């Protein structure tokens, strides 16, 4: 009985799932140099693992100074949005096998926000825009949770798509208008405004529309669809922005 078991173990080790992958990571440490540089890491990794696992291997086994954000590591917290092979993605939702591991995999911080160290950026401007659209329920009579606020299934469906946002900033940092001066509200803030503007229970839709009628509001959107392509949650971001534009126009005319 022991012999077949030994055979199986040997067969498994012979057909190793591991491949060698090069991670080309954008390094930046303001305490050393004002310039960001590329650094290559060679890893033995299962192609069915994720880019985040590769970054963990680097941080835990090769170079502990590599700095990046991640919390839940399962695509919900929105901490580890980064530019992988030139496209904004969540490192924890991108499998190595899906991004051509034969070539070096480039990992950069998301663009348009100040890099603090390696892959960590200053998210403050992003969250400032988020706070500006008042992303919370506002009602005229009372905000006290005295009773349940009923809503039909259809009314809930109206803004269902934009409730999926995890605030990872993949959309906003893929937007060329945001890259220029960072004054544009950005897709994420508009998506989260959309979530309340089209909520039948909320009563401050008018106020939010007025905020987004800003010089740097929805009208700076050039419908390049970068945000829709970048969203790891599959939200139709450009469509949501267009709906806010439409609401602004139909409200005035």
């Amino acid at each position, binding site marked *: 009985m022991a012999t077949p078991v030994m055979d199986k173990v040997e067969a498994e080790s012979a057909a190793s799932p591991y491949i060698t992958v090069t991670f080309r990571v954008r*390094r930046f440490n303001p*305490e050393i140099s004002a310039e960001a540089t590329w650094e290559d*890491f060679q890893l033995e990794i299962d192609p069915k693992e994720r880019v985040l696992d590769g970054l963990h291997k680097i941080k835990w086994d090769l170079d502990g100074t590599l700095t990046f954000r991640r919390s839940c590591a399962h695509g919900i917290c929105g901490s580890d949005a980064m530019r992988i092979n030139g496209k904004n993605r969540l490192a924890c939702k991108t499998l190595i096998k899906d991004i051509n591991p034969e070539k070096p995999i480039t990992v950069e911080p998301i663009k348009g926000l100040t890099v603090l160290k390696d892959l960590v950026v200053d998210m403050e401007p992003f969250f400032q825009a988020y706070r500006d659209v008042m992303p919370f329920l506002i009602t005229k009579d009372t905000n006290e949770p005295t009773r349940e606020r009923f809503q039909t299934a259809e009314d809930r469906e109206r803004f269902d798509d934009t409730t999926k946002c995890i605030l990872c900033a993949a959309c906003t940092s893929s937007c060329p208008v945001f890259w220029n001066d960072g004054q544009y509200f950005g897709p994420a803030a508009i998506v989260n405004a959309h979530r309340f503007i089209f909520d039948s229970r909320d009563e401050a839709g008018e106020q939010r529309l007025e905020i987004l009628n800003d010089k740097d509001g929805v009208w700076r959107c050039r419908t390049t669809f970068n945000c829709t392509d970048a969203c790891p949650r599959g939200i139709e971001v450009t469509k949501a922005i267009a709906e806010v534009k439409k609401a602004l126009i139909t409200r005035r005319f």
Partner: protein
Amino acid sequence: MSTTEKTATGIGPVEGESLYNVDNPAPYIEAPRKRTKKTPKSTRGNFEMAAWLFMRLSGVVLVVLVIGHLLIQLVLDGGVSKIGFAFVAGRWASPFWQVWDLLMLWLAMLHGANGLRTVINDYAERANTRLWLKGLLYTATVFTILLGTLVIFTFDPNIR
């Protein structure tokens, strides 16, 4: 198990020389969207919405005007070879073509100028660059519109 090849080291002296210290602090850079004394109270208004709508509406009208214009000037009735002083004079004798050309001039100039304005807003990085580029743009636009309008209304076919 793993090997590493580094093109640059990520490890530096933790307590190395710094350019700045308590007496010589690093320059403070204001974050974008941060509220400061210089931030205008409100940048809201309907101008951007009007500009956005104008681009769509004028675009639709311009498709008709420009394609019609190109057909008449270049394709129909002998093509480009028929165009001369007499042809233009004959067309501008009718108020219909005067209005057509005037509308096309105004819409095309404003449509193009507004498009370039957004390009400048999106690509110019410094406030001064923006100011100068937009100044140049508006000057050229106003000059072209006024000159064109003047010619359409004061055109004299008997000029010597």
